[in-house]
């Protein structure tokens, strides 16, 4: 698998291959084609950052631009999923969930349970999250902890182009509602991606570095910060095991617990705000189920309890980075007993 493409291209390819494979797959969102009703080019945008570019040319009306009415079109995707289609709806920024959350968390997520197991809602909601674009408080949030909290949803957080493609194909073929979270800073990241379609099962974390001293559990963009930290620490003789959760719901508890049983030390890295997030979730899991293996306090490296600031200096301070992760790892190592 020598071919390198970007995270963004991997997503595009997954969509394209699944649309070719299955005519029930349709795409909808604001300017996912772009140019609707205008005098100019037909597929003028292909998504606000070009992620869906080319799909309209290939699939025509199966790529649907929508008015700016997230409740209506996300809800339509949900409704269509109960009625025979397999829609992939784009919530442009995850930050916009506030205008359409009901259709996701009270409708899609709960149908199967409320209806006594007699519903399938194979809808995928693709959405862009994370800080780093100087896009300020309403366009830079993580918010995946909110979706992870809700029973009935699956939450997917690819960190690499390879995972983006495999997890998105899985998401589209999956029969439950999936929130597919794409980190905007990762779109340009390149990596090896096989050309043929493949799936990555949900609930299987990926151990991206092996190490015996400290377990670092992380996800999304933070995987790269953590591996950078692990590389730096390795030079100082501290061997970190870096676990990329890949999906937060379901979450691969076994891989986390086994690793901590080996290392006895845990640092959890989560870009999200610190309260009730994935970092607390993983910490709590380990403090319950791997307590006897723990040799040191569990440290969390997360965004702070403040909205994401605009100014580049402040945003850079806001985002967890390798240095902060290294400091946390050193802290848990210092506690050796």
């Amino acid at each position, binding site marked *: 698998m020598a071919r390198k493409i970007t995270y963004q291209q991997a997503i595009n390819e997954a969509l394209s291959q699944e649309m070719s494979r299955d005519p029930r797959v349709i795409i909808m969102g604001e300017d996912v084609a772009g140019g609707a009703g205008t005098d100019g080019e037909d597929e003028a945008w292909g998504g606000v950052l070009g992620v869906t570019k080319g799909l309209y040319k290939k699939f025509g009306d199966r790529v649907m631009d929508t*008015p700016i*009415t997230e409740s*209506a*079109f996300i809800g339509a995707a949900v409704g*269509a999923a109960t009625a*025979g289609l397999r829609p992939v709806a784009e919530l442009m920024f995850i930050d916009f969930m506030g205008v359409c959350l009901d259709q996701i968390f009270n409708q899609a997520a709960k149908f*199967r*349970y*409320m209806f006594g197991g007699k519903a399938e809602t194979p809808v995928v909601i693709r959405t862009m999250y994370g800080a780093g674009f100087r896009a300020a408080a309403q366009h830079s949030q993580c918010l995946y902890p909110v979706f992870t909290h809700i029973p009935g949803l*699956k939450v997917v957080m690819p960190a690499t182009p390879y995972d983006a493609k495999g997890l998105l194909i899985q998401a589209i073929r999956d029969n439950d509602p999936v929130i597919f979270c794409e980190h905007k800073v990762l779109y340009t990241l390149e990596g090896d991606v096989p050309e043929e379609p493949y799936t990555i099962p949900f609930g299987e974390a990926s151990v991206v570095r092996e190490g015996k001293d400290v377990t670092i559990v992380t996800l999304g963009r933070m995987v790269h910060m953590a591996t950078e930290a692990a590389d730096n620490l390795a030079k100082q003789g501290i061997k970190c095991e870096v676990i990329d959760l890949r999906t937060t719901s379901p979450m691969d508890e076994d891989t986390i617990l086994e690793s901590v049983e080996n290392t006895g030390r845990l640092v959890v890295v989560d870009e999200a705000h610190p309260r009730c997030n994935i970092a607390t979730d993983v910490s709590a899991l380990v403090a319950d189920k791997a307590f006897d293996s723990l040799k040191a306090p569990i440290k969390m490296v997360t965004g702070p309890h403040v909205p994401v600031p605009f100014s580049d200096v402040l945003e850079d301070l806001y985002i967890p980075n390798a240095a902060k992760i290294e400091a946390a790892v050193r802290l848990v190592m210092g506690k050796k007993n």
Partner: protein
Amino acid sequence: MQLSKADLLKAYRMMKTIREFEERLHVEFATGEIPGFVHLYAGEEASATGFCMHLDGRDKIASTHRGHGHSIGKGCDVDAMMAEIYGKKSGLCGGKGGSMHIADLDKGMLGANGIVGGGPPLICGAGLAAKVLKTGGVAIAFVGDGAFNQGTTAESLNLASVWRLPCLFVVENNGYAEATSSKYSVSCDDFTDRAAAYSMPGIAVDGHDFFAVYEAAGEAIKRARSGGGPSLIEVKLNRYYGHFEGDAQTYRGVDEVKNIRATKDCLVLFRRRVEGAKLLDASELNKIDADVMAQIENAVKKAKAAPKPTAADLMTDVYVSY
């Protein structure tokens, strides 16, 4: 639109079943045996029936918290509905949903909905699926007068219009949202005033008159099926009971319901019309009445006797796979 004798009998049976289902629930609720919130549709039967009489297996509907009538109209099993309302394992949703979440996707009933305005976006999706999959189906969102103000409804009207979806938006205007009058909460005089805002036909119809509803419904459904896009239909009607069971209804005028029952009851009007025109005779209708009484009696008995779900049921049915 011509209704055959069989159609007329079917329509009457549907209305009567809804009525009897609700009247009986009203009585049973008072005993304290039925858990949760129950919103009765009694008085509004001609609406659900007028629309559902046109529908078949291709078609989908989304309902509201006041969903029993639509569910019966769309063919949900009455025994299973009753058992569901009692929270029994044999319920349509295994006792997990209750009155506010009765659904049967196999029947095209996308669910009652505990969220006011929850249905219209879903119906856009059902309409879209019909369009993309070329099933010839239509999709109907029933919403209340209160729900019509909800942003989700407005967005859905726009989306259905932009995408020219085979959808109907049916406002069942019973004059109240909980204890608030639609005269207060709705800023237009007639809901049809909101149709032009979305470039769709807007029709108002007397919801006590099954035939009027049936005709308006038929036209809008025909238009939708033939690619003519969505319609908005306001059905003016009344609810006979409170917002939910237990509501003292002090906000209603003296004898308000009594007068409506006396003069505008949809079942009475139906009988008067079909008997008057000699389309059906009283004995045929009386027989239906008796059948329905027995059916509901039986449904309640079975529901009461049915076993409840057990601990094994708590964690199932969340995901297809996890």
